Protein backbone atom coordinates (compact mmCIF):
# COMPACT_ATOMS: atom_id res chain seq x y z
CA UNK A 1 0.00 0.00 0.00
CA UNK A 2 1.58 3.29 -1.06
CA UNK A 3 1.78 5.79 1.72
CA UNK A 4 0.56 8.87 -0.06
CA UNK A 5 -2.50 7.38 -1.74
CA UNK A 6 -4.80 8.09 1.17
CA UNK A 7 -4.97 11.42 2.88
CA UNK A 8 -5.65 12.14 6.48
CA UNK A 9 -9.40 12.11 6.57
CA UNK A 10 -10.46 8.85 4.84
CA UNK A 11 -8.91 6.58 7.50
CA UNK A 12 -10.66 8.60 10.15
CA UNK A 13 -13.95 8.19 8.33
CA UNK A 14 -13.26 4.50 7.89
CA UNK A 15 -12.38 4.24 11.54
CA UNK A 16 -15.64 5.87 12.59
CA UNK A 17 -17.79 3.95 10.15
CA UNK A 18 -16.46 0.49 10.97
CA UNK A 19 -16.64 1.18 14.65
CA UNK A 20 -19.94 2.99 14.59
CA UNK A 21 -21.54 0.23 16.65
CA UNK A 22 -20.16 1.65 19.86
CA UNK A 23 -16.71 0.06 19.54
CA UNK A 24 -14.80 3.30 20.03
CA UNK A 25 -16.45 3.96 23.35
CA UNK A 26 -16.17 0.25 24.11
CA UNK A 27 -12.42 0.47 23.57
CA UNK A 28 -12.15 3.44 25.89
CA UNK A 29 -14.33 1.76 28.50
CA UNK A 30 -12.37 -1.48 28.42
CA UNK A 31 -9.08 0.42 28.47
CA UNK A 32 -10.17 2.29 31.60
CA UNK A 33 -11.41 -0.95 33.20
CA UNK A 34 -8.19 -2.88 32.55
CA UNK A 35 -6.06 0.07 33.63
CA UNK A 36 -7.97 0.41 36.89
CA UNK A 37 -7.56 -3.33 37.43
CA UNK A 38 -3.80 -3.03 36.85
CA UNK A 39 -3.55 0.01 39.12
CA UNK A 40 -5.47 -1.86 41.80
CA UNK A 41 -3.07 -4.78 41.47
CA UNK A 42 -0.08 -2.46 41.82
CA UNK A 43 -1.49 -0.83 44.94
CA UNK A 44 -2.57 -4.09 46.57
CA UNK A 45 0.76 -5.76 45.73
CA UNK A 46 2.74 -2.82 47.04
CA UNK A 47 0.75 -1.94 50.15
CA UNK A 48 -0.55 -5.26 51.38
CA UNK A 49 0.70 -8.77 51.33
CA UNK A 50 -2.43 -10.52 50.10
CA UNK A 51 -1.15 -11.25 46.61
CA UNK A 52 1.40 -13.86 47.64
CA UNK A 53 -0.98 -16.67 46.81
CA UNK A 54 -2.01 -15.22 43.45
CA UNK A 55 1.62 -14.60 42.58
CA UNK A 56 2.56 -18.14 43.52
CA UNK A 57 -0.30 -19.50 41.43
CA UNK A 58 0.76 -17.35 38.48
CA UNK A 59 4.35 -18.47 38.90
CA UNK A 60 3.23 -22.02 38.16
CA UNK A 61 2.43 -20.67 34.69
CA UNK A 62 5.74 -18.84 34.43
CA UNK A 63 7.85 -21.73 35.70
CA UNK A 64 7.61 -23.87 32.51
CA UNK A 65 8.67 -20.87 30.42
CA UNK A 66 11.64 -20.24 32.69
CA UNK A 67 12.65 -23.88 32.62
CA UNK A 68 12.22 -24.03 28.84
CA UNK A 69 14.44 -20.98 28.43
CA UNK A 70 17.08 -22.23 30.86
CA UNK A 71 17.23 -25.86 29.69
CA UNK A 72 19.24 -25.41 26.46
CA UNK A 73 21.90 -23.53 28.42
CA UNK A 74 21.86 -26.14 31.17
CA UNK A 75 22.21 -28.78 28.49
CA UNK A 76 25.17 -26.96 27.00
CA UNK A 77 26.87 -26.76 30.40
CA UNK A 78 26.20 -30.46 30.92
CA UNK A 79 27.57 -31.26 27.46
CA UNK A 80 30.72 -29.25 28.05
CA UNK A 81 31.27 -30.92 31.38
CA UNK A 82 30.80 -34.39 29.95
CA UNK A 83 33.24 -33.92 27.05
CA UNK A 84 36.13 -32.47 29.06
CA UNK A 85 39.29 -34.41 28.46
CA UNK A 86 41.06 -36.64 30.92
CA UNK A 87 43.94 -34.17 31.16
CA UNK A 88 41.67 -31.31 32.15
CA UNK A 89 40.02 -33.48 34.75
CA UNK A 90 43.37 -34.48 36.19
CA UNK A 91 44.59 -30.90 36.28
CA UNK A 92 41.32 -29.85 37.94
CA UNK A 93 41.64 -32.66 40.43
CA UNK A 94 45.17 -31.68 41.39
CA UNK A 95 44.24 -28.03 41.75
CA UNK A 96 41.21 -28.85 43.88
CA UNK A 97 43.19 -31.17 46.10
CA UNK A 98 45.76 -28.46 46.68
CA UNK A 99 42.95 -26.04 47.53
CA UNK A 100 41.41 -28.57 49.88
CA UNK A 101 44.72 -29.06 51.70
CA UNK A 102 45.03 -25.33 52.28
CA UNK A 103 41.39 -25.08 53.33
CA UNK A 104 41.67 -27.94 55.79
CA UNK A 105 44.84 -26.49 57.23
CA UNK A 106 42.98 -23.24 57.84
CA UNK A 107 39.95 -25.05 59.17
CA UNK A 108 41.96 -26.72 61.93
CA UNK A 109 42.83 -23.32 63.32
CA UNK A 110 39.35 -22.00 62.62
CA UNK A 111 37.59 -24.57 64.74
CA UNK A 112 39.85 -23.90 67.69
CA UNK A 113 39.31 -20.16 67.22
CA UNK A 114 35.55 -20.53 66.94
CA UNK A 115 35.42 -22.54 70.15
CA UNK A 116 37.52 -19.94 71.88
CA UNK A 117 35.37 -17.14 70.52
CA UNK A 118 32.18 -18.86 71.69
CA UNK A 119 33.70 -19.28 75.16
CA UNK A 120 34.62 -15.61 75.36
CA UNK A 121 31.23 -14.56 74.07
CA UNK A 122 29.52 -16.78 76.59
CA UNK A 123 31.49 -14.94 79.27
CA UNK A 124 30.26 -11.65 77.85
CA UNK A 125 26.74 -13.06 77.64
CA UNK A 126 26.44 -12.02 74.01
CA UNK A 127 26.51 -15.16 71.91
CA UNK A 128 25.53 -14.40 68.34
CA UNK A 129 23.80 -16.66 65.87
CA UNK A 130 26.01 -19.09 64.01
CA UNK A 131 25.38 -20.88 60.74
CA UNK A 132 23.17 -23.88 61.36
CA UNK A 133 22.78 -25.55 57.99
CA UNK A 134 22.75 -24.64 54.32
CA UNK A 135 21.62 -25.90 50.93
CA UNK A 136 23.22 -25.29 47.55
CA UNK A 137 21.20 -23.68 44.77
CA UNK A 138 22.04 -23.22 41.08
CA UNK A 139 21.45 -19.92 39.33
CA UNK A 140 18.98 -20.48 36.48
CA UNK A 141 19.96 -19.08 33.08
CA UNK A 142 17.13 -16.59 33.00
CA UNK A 143 17.61 -12.85 32.65
CA UNK A 144 15.39 -10.82 34.93
CA UNK A 145 15.09 -7.05 34.62
CA UNK A 146 18.29 -5.85 32.92
CA UNK A 147 18.64 -2.83 35.18
CA UNK A 148 18.27 -4.56 38.52
CA UNK A 149 20.84 -6.83 40.07
CA UNK A 150 18.79 -9.95 40.69
CA UNK A 151 19.08 -13.62 39.80
CA UNK A 152 16.68 -16.55 39.76
CA UNK A 153 17.77 -19.65 41.70
CA UNK A 154 16.31 -23.15 41.44
CA UNK A 155 15.44 -23.53 45.12
CA UNK A 156 12.14 -22.28 46.50
CA UNK A 157 9.51 -22.60 49.18
CA UNK A 158 9.39 -26.38 48.77
CA UNK A 159 13.03 -26.53 49.96
CA UNK A 160 12.29 -24.22 52.89
CA UNK A 161 13.84 -21.04 51.45
CA UNK A 162 12.36 -17.89 53.01
CA UNK A 163 12.36 -14.18 52.24
CA UNK A 164 15.32 -12.34 53.77
CA UNK A 165 17.49 -15.45 53.94
CA UNK A 166 21.22 -14.85 53.61
CA UNK A 167 22.85 -16.18 50.42
CA UNK A 168 26.61 -16.80 50.17
CA UNK A 169 28.95 -18.04 47.49
CA UNK A 170 32.48 -19.43 47.76
CA UNK A 171 34.02 -15.96 48.07
CA UNK A 172 31.70 -14.35 50.58
CA UNK A 173 28.27 -12.81 50.95
CA UNK A 174 26.28 -12.83 47.71
CA UNK A 175 22.93 -11.29 48.65
CA UNK A 176 19.60 -12.19 50.17
CA UNK A 177 16.35 -13.79 49.08
CA UNK A 178 13.91 -11.18 47.83
CA UNK A 179 10.99 -13.34 46.73
CA UNK A 180 10.10 -17.00 47.03
CA UNK A 181 8.05 -19.09 44.61
CA UNK A 182 7.29 -22.77 44.92
CA UNK A 183 10.36 -24.10 43.11
CA UNK A 184 12.40 -20.96 42.49
CA UNK A 185 13.47 -17.92 44.41
CA UNK A 186 14.75 -14.52 43.45
CA UNK A 187 18.00 -13.38 45.06
CA UNK A 188 18.83 -9.71 45.27
CA UNK A 189 22.57 -9.14 44.87
CA UNK A 190 24.69 -7.01 47.19
CA UNK A 191 25.22 -4.67 44.26
CA UNK A 192 21.53 -3.88 43.69
CA UNK A 193 20.92 -0.16 44.30
CA UNK A 194 18.07 -1.11 46.65
CA UNK A 195 20.26 -3.35 48.82
CA UNK A 196 22.19 -2.45 51.96
CA UNK A 197 24.12 -4.72 54.32
CA UNK A 198 25.45 -3.96 57.81
CA UNK A 199 29.23 -4.44 57.76
CA UNK A 200 32.26 -3.97 59.93
CA UNK A 201 35.84 -3.14 59.00
CA UNK A 202 37.83 -6.17 60.10
CA UNK A 203 40.95 -4.21 61.05
CA UNK A 204 39.33 -1.63 63.31
CA UNK A 205 35.90 -3.01 64.12
CA UNK A 206 34.27 0.15 62.73
CA UNK A 207 30.65 -0.56 61.83
CA UNK A 208 28.82 0.89 58.86
CA UNK A 209 26.44 -0.01 56.04
CA UNK A 210 27.50 -1.09 52.53
CA UNK A 211 25.06 -0.05 49.80
CA UNK A 212 24.83 -1.41 46.25
CA UNK A 213 25.48 0.83 43.26
CA UNK A 214 23.91 -1.06 40.38
CA UNK A 215 27.41 -1.87 39.16
CA UNK A 216 28.25 -5.54 39.81
CA UNK A 217 31.87 -4.86 40.73
CA UNK A 218 31.33 -2.01 43.19
CA UNK A 219 29.63 -1.28 46.51
CA UNK A 220 29.90 1.96 48.44
CA UNK A 221 30.06 3.00 52.07
CA UNK A 222 28.06 6.24 52.05
CA UNK A 223 27.83 6.80 55.82
CA UNK A 224 31.49 7.06 56.84
CA UNK A 225 32.74 10.47 58.06
CA UNK A 226 35.90 11.86 56.46
CA UNK A 227 37.73 11.27 59.73
CA UNK A 228 36.90 7.54 59.75
CA UNK A 229 39.81 5.12 59.99
CA UNK A 230 39.54 3.34 56.63
CA UNK A 231 42.29 2.65 54.11
CA UNK A 232 42.43 0.92 50.73
CA UNK A 233 42.68 -2.85 51.19
CA UNK A 234 40.62 -3.02 54.39
CA UNK A 235 38.54 -6.19 54.59
CA UNK A 236 34.84 -5.73 55.31
CA UNK A 237 32.95 -8.52 57.07
CA UNK A 238 29.29 -8.81 57.97
CA UNK A 239 28.59 -7.37 61.39
CA UNK A 240 25.53 -9.51 62.01
CA UNK A 241 23.54 -6.46 63.16
CA UNK A 242 19.90 -6.81 62.26
CA UNK A 243 20.15 -10.58 62.40
CA UNK A 244 19.72 -11.17 58.68
CA UNK A 245 23.27 -12.16 57.83
CA UNK A 246 25.59 -14.41 59.84
CA UNK A 247 28.40 -12.32 61.35
CA UNK A 248 32.00 -12.56 60.22
CA UNK A 249 31.61 -13.44 56.54
CA UNK A 250 33.65 -11.43 54.04
CA UNK A 251 31.71 -8.79 52.07
CA UNK A 252 34.52 -7.11 50.16
CA UNK A 253 37.70 -5.08 50.28
CA UNK A 254 37.97 -1.31 50.18
CA UNK A 255 39.13 -0.36 46.68
CA UNK A 256 39.26 3.43 46.92
CA UNK A 257 38.88 6.12 49.56
CA UNK A 258 38.30 9.75 48.55
CA UNK A 259 38.29 12.38 51.26
CA UNK A 260 37.02 15.79 50.23
CA UNK A 261 37.67 18.26 53.08
CA UNK A 262 34.59 20.23 52.07
CA UNK A 263 32.33 17.21 52.63
CA UNK A 264 31.48 15.67 55.96
CA UNK A 265 31.27 12.14 54.55
CA UNK A 266 34.04 10.20 52.82
CA UNK A 267 33.55 8.59 49.41
CA UNK A 268 34.51 4.93 49.87
CA UNK A 269 34.24 2.20 47.21
CA UNK A 270 34.29 -1.51 47.94
CA UNK A 271 35.02 -4.44 45.65
CA UNK A 272 32.71 -7.33 46.61
CA UNK A 273 34.33 -10.56 47.78
CA UNK A 274 31.71 -12.79 46.15
CA UNK A 275 31.92 -13.37 42.40
CA UNK A 276 28.62 -11.57 41.82
CA UNK A 277 28.82 -11.86 38.03
CA UNK A 278 30.44 -15.29 37.75
CA UNK A 279 29.12 -17.62 40.44
CA UNK A 280 26.73 -20.37 39.41
CA UNK A 281 26.30 -22.09 42.76
CA UNK A 282 24.98 -20.30 45.83
CA UNK A 283 24.52 -21.32 49.46
CA UNK A 284 21.28 -20.58 51.29
CA UNK A 285 22.12 -20.28 54.98
CA UNK A 286 20.00 -20.98 58.04
CA UNK A 287 21.13 -19.30 61.24
CA UNK A 288 20.91 -20.94 64.61
CA UNK A 289 19.71 -18.06 66.78
CA UNK A 290 21.00 -18.11 70.32
CA UNK A 291 18.74 -17.55 73.31
CA UNK A 292 20.25 -14.17 74.16
CA UNK A 293 19.87 -12.91 70.61
CA UNK A 294 16.17 -13.67 70.40
CA UNK A 295 15.53 -12.36 73.92
CA UNK A 296 17.21 -9.02 73.36
CA UNK A 297 15.74 -8.75 69.87
CA UNK A 298 12.30 -9.12 71.40
CA UNK A 299 13.12 -6.48 74.00
CA UNK A 300 14.45 -3.84 71.59
CA UNK A 301 14.72 -4.71 67.92
CA UNK A 302 16.83 -1.61 67.22
CA UNK A 303 19.66 -2.77 69.49
CA UNK A 304 20.76 -6.36 68.87
CA UNK A 305 23.73 -7.63 70.89
CA UNK A 306 27.07 -6.42 69.76
CA UNK A 307 28.95 -8.82 67.53
CA UNK A 308 32.38 -7.13 67.51
CA UNK A 309 34.91 -9.88 66.79
CA UNK A 310 37.64 -8.46 68.97
CA UNK A 311 36.21 -7.41 72.32
CA UNK A 312 38.04 -4.27 73.32
CA UNK A 313 36.95 -4.63 76.89
CA UNK A 314 38.28 -7.77 78.57
CA UNK A 315 35.63 -10.26 79.63
CA UNK A 316 36.50 -9.59 83.25
CA UNK A 317 35.01 -6.12 82.85
CA UNK A 318 31.52 -7.49 83.34
CA UNK A 319 32.48 -8.45 86.87
CA UNK A 320 33.62 -4.97 87.77
CA UNK A 321 31.90 -2.79 90.33
CA UNK A 322 29.20 -0.20 89.80
CA UNK A 323 31.26 2.97 89.12
CA UNK A 324 32.66 1.69 85.82
CA UNK A 325 29.26 0.57 84.57
CA UNK A 326 27.86 3.97 85.51
CA UNK A 327 30.59 5.54 83.45
CA UNK A 328 29.63 3.60 80.35
CA UNK A 329 26.29 5.33 79.60
CA UNK A 330 27.95 8.71 80.10
CA UNK A 331 30.54 7.72 77.52
CA UNK A 332 27.80 6.57 75.19
CA UNK A 333 26.11 9.97 75.44
CA UNK A 334 29.37 11.75 74.79
CA UNK A 335 29.86 9.63 71.68
CA UNK A 336 26.39 10.24 70.37
CA UNK A 337 26.89 14.00 70.62
CA UNK A 338 29.21 14.42 67.62
CA UNK A 339 29.50 12.56 64.32
CA UNK A 340 33.29 12.87 64.29
CA UNK A 341 33.47 10.58 67.29
CA UNK A 342 32.30 7.54 65.39
CA UNK A 343 35.87 6.30 65.07
CA UNK A 344 35.83 6.09 68.85
CA UNK A 345 32.77 3.99 69.34
CA UNK A 346 34.21 1.27 67.18
CA UNK A 347 36.89 0.69 69.76
CA UNK A 348 34.48 0.51 72.69
CA UNK A 349 31.62 -1.65 71.51
CA UNK A 350 29.95 -2.05 74.87
CA UNK A 351 26.82 0.00 74.29
CA UNK A 352 23.98 -0.12 71.82
CA UNK A 353 24.85 1.06 68.29
CA UNK A 354 24.10 4.72 67.64
CA UNK A 355 20.84 5.51 65.96
CA UNK A 356 22.20 6.41 62.52
CA UNK A 357 23.85 3.01 62.21
CA UNK A 358 20.54 1.27 62.66
CA UNK A 359 19.13 2.84 59.50
CA UNK A 360 20.15 -0.20 57.45
CA UNK A 361 18.07 -2.19 55.00
Amino acid at each position, binding site marked *: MPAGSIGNSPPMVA*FRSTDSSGRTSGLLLRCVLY*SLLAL*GLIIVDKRYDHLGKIRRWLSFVAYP*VQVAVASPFEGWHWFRESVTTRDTLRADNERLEAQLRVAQFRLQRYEALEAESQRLRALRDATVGVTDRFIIGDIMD*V*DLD*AFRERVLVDKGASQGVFVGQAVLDAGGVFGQVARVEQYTSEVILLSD*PAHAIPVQINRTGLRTVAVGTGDTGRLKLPYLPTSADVVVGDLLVTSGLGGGFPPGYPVGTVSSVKRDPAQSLADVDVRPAAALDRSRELMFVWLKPSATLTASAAASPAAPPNPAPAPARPPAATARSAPSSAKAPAKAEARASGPSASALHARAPGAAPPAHKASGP
Partner: protein
Amino acid sequence: MMREERIQRLPVVVSALVALALAVIPLPALLDALRPDFLVLVVFYWSIESPRAGGLALAFFSGLALDVINGVVLGQHALALTLITAWAIHLRLRLRVFSILSQSLTIFMLLTLYQFILFWVDGATGNPVVNFGRWLAPVVGGAIWPLVSGILSRFRER
Protein backbone atom coordinates in the same frame (compact mmCIF):
# COMPACT_ATOMS: atom_id res chain seq x y z
CA MET B 1 -16.30 -15.05 11.48
CA MET B 2 -16.37 -17.66 14.21
CA ARG B 3 -14.23 -20.01 12.17
CA GLU B 4 -11.67 -17.31 11.46
CA GLU B 5 -11.41 -16.49 15.15
CA ARG B 6 -10.91 -20.10 16.11
CA ILE B 7 -8.11 -20.46 13.60
CA GLN B 8 -6.41 -17.33 14.81
CA ARG B 9 -6.17 -18.18 18.48
CA LEU B 10 -3.27 -20.60 18.14
CA PRO B 11 -0.74 -18.36 16.35
CA VAL B 12 -1.48 -15.57 18.81
CA VAL B 13 -0.83 -17.75 21.85
CA VAL B 14 2.25 -19.40 20.33
CA SER B 15 3.83 -16.12 19.23
CA ALA B 16 3.09 -14.56 22.62
CA LEU B 17 4.75 -17.47 24.42
CA VAL B 18 7.80 -17.29 22.17
CA ALA B 19 8.04 -13.55 22.80
CA LEU B 20 7.72 -14.16 26.55
CA ALA B 21 10.60 -16.64 26.38
CA LEU B 22 12.65 -14.13 24.36
CA ALA B 23 12.05 -11.58 27.13
CA VAL B 24 14.00 -13.66 29.66
CA ILE B 25 16.44 -15.58 27.47
CA PRO B 26 19.99 -14.97 28.72
CA LEU B 27 22.00 -12.53 26.63
CA PRO B 28 25.44 -10.98 27.09
CA ALA B 29 25.33 -7.85 29.24
CA LEU B 30 25.82 -5.51 26.28
CA LEU B 31 22.93 -6.99 24.29
CA ASP B 32 20.81 -7.30 27.41
CA ALA B 33 20.56 -3.52 27.68
CA LEU B 34 19.45 -3.36 24.04
CA ARG B 35 16.87 -6.15 24.35
CA PRO B 36 13.65 -4.89 22.69
CA ASP B 37 10.24 -5.57 24.24
CA PHE B 38 9.37 -8.51 21.98
CA LEU B 39 6.07 -9.27 23.67
CA VAL B 40 4.93 -5.66 23.24
CA LEU B 41 5.68 -5.84 19.51
CA VAL B 42 3.75 -9.11 19.21
CA VAL B 43 0.76 -7.69 21.07
CA PHE B 44 0.90 -4.62 18.80
CA TYR B 45 0.97 -6.75 15.69
CA TRP B 46 -2.10 -8.78 16.61
CA SER B 47 -3.96 -5.73 17.89
CA ILE B 48 -3.30 -3.81 14.68
CA GLU B 49 -4.06 -6.75 12.38
CA SER B 50 -7.20 -7.98 14.11
CA PRO B 51 -8.28 -6.52 17.43
CA ARG B 52 -10.45 -9.58 17.99
CA ALA B 53 -7.42 -11.85 18.09
CA GLY B 54 -5.28 -9.42 20.04
CA GLY B 55 -6.86 -6.58 21.86
CA LEU B 56 -6.84 -5.39 25.41
CA ALA B 57 -7.37 -8.77 27.07
CA LEU B 58 -4.25 -10.10 25.35
CA ALA B 59 -2.37 -6.95 26.34
CA PHE B 60 -3.46 -7.15 29.98
CA PHE B 61 -2.61 -10.81 30.45
CA SER B 62 0.67 -10.52 28.53
CA GLY B 63 1.60 -7.65 30.82
CA LEU B 64 0.70 -9.75 33.85
CA ALA B 65 2.91 -12.56 32.54
CA LEU B 66 5.78 -10.09 32.13
CA ASP B 67 5.27 -8.90 35.70
CA VAL B 68 5.42 -12.42 37.06
CA ILE B 69 8.36 -13.55 34.98
CA ASN B 70 10.36 -10.38 35.60
CA GLY B 71 9.54 -10.42 39.29
CA VAL B 72 8.40 -6.80 39.50
CA VAL B 73 5.34 -5.34 41.20
CA LEU B 74 2.21 -7.06 39.90
CA GLY B 75 0.30 -4.91 37.40
CA GLN B 76 3.17 -2.70 36.24
CA HIS B 77 3.62 -4.09 32.74
CA ALA B 78 -0.10 -4.88 32.60
CA LEU B 79 -0.96 -1.20 33.08
CA ALA B 80 1.60 0.08 30.60
CA LEU B 81 0.77 -2.51 27.96
CA THR B 82 -3.00 -1.97 28.31
CA LEU B 83 -2.72 1.79 27.87
CA ILE B 84 -0.46 1.79 24.84
CA THR B 85 -2.27 -1.12 23.19
CA ALA B 86 -5.49 0.85 23.49
CA TRP B 87 -3.76 3.68 21.68
CA ALA B 88 -2.37 1.31 19.06
CA ILE B 89 -5.86 -0.11 18.45
CA HIS B 90 -7.17 3.43 18.12
CA LEU B 91 -4.46 4.16 15.52
CA ARG B 92 -4.61 0.82 13.76
CA LEU B 93 -6.38 1.78 10.54
CA ARG B 94 -4.00 4.67 10.06
CA LEU B 95 -1.02 2.49 10.97
CA ARG B 96 -1.93 -0.03 8.27
CA VAL B 97 -1.66 2.52 5.49
CA PHE B 98 1.52 4.09 6.80
CA SER B 99 4.80 3.46 5.03
CA ILE B 100 7.07 1.07 6.88
CA LEU B 101 9.24 3.96 8.11
CA SER B 102 6.28 5.87 9.56
CA GLN B 103 5.06 2.67 11.15
CA SER B 104 8.43 2.19 12.82
CA LEU B 105 8.44 5.76 14.07
CA THR B 106 4.93 5.41 15.51
CA ILE B 107 5.88 2.14 17.19
CA PHE B 108 8.96 3.85 18.58
CA MET B 109 6.80 6.59 20.05
CA LEU B 110 4.41 4.08 21.63
CA LEU B 111 7.31 2.05 23.05
CA THR B 112 8.82 5.19 24.56
CA LEU B 113 5.49 5.91 26.22
CA TYR B 114 5.46 2.30 27.46
CA GLN B 115 8.91 2.73 29.03
CA PHE B 116 7.79 6.00 30.54
CA ILE B 117 4.80 4.35 32.26
CA LEU B 118 7.09 1.58 33.57
CA PHE B 119 9.54 4.23 34.76
CA TRP B 120 6.76 6.09 36.51
CA VAL B 121 5.43 2.98 38.27
CA ASP B 122 9.01 2.09 39.30
CA GLY B 123 9.39 5.50 40.87
CA ALA B 124 5.94 5.47 42.49
CA THR B 125 6.54 2.06 44.09
CA GLY B 126 9.83 3.19 45.56
CA ASN B 127 12.54 1.42 43.57
CA PRO B 128 13.52 3.81 40.80
CA VAL B 129 15.88 2.52 38.13
CA VAL B 130 17.91 5.56 37.16
CA ASN B 131 19.75 4.05 34.25
CA PHE B 132 19.83 5.65 30.86
CA GLY B 133 20.00 2.21 29.21
CA ARG B 134 16.27 1.60 29.46
CA TRP B 135 15.51 4.28 26.87
CA LEU B 136 17.48 2.31 24.26
CA ALA B 137 14.90 -0.50 24.13
CA PRO B 138 12.28 1.60 22.27
CA VAL B 139 14.85 2.56 19.62
CA VAL B 140 15.71 -1.07 18.99
CA GLY B 141 12.03 -2.03 19.16
CA GLY B 142 11.10 0.55 16.51
CA ALA B 143 14.02 -0.57 14.35
CA ILE B 144 13.06 -4.25 14.36
CA TRP B 145 9.32 -3.64 13.93
CA PRO B 146 9.40 -4.33 10.14
CA LEU B 147 11.16 -7.63 10.84
CA VAL B 148 8.71 -8.69 13.56
CA SER B 149 5.62 -7.76 11.56
CA GLY B 150 7.07 -9.50 8.50
CA ILE B 151 7.71 -12.72 10.41
CA LEU B 152 4.31 -12.65 12.09
CA SER B 153 2.40 -12.02 8.86
CA ARG B 154 4.22 -14.98 7.27
CA PHE B 155 3.30 -16.99 10.35
CA ARG B 156 -0.35 -15.91 10.10
CA GLU B 157 -0.75 -16.78 6.45
CA ARG B 158 0.43 -20.33 6.96
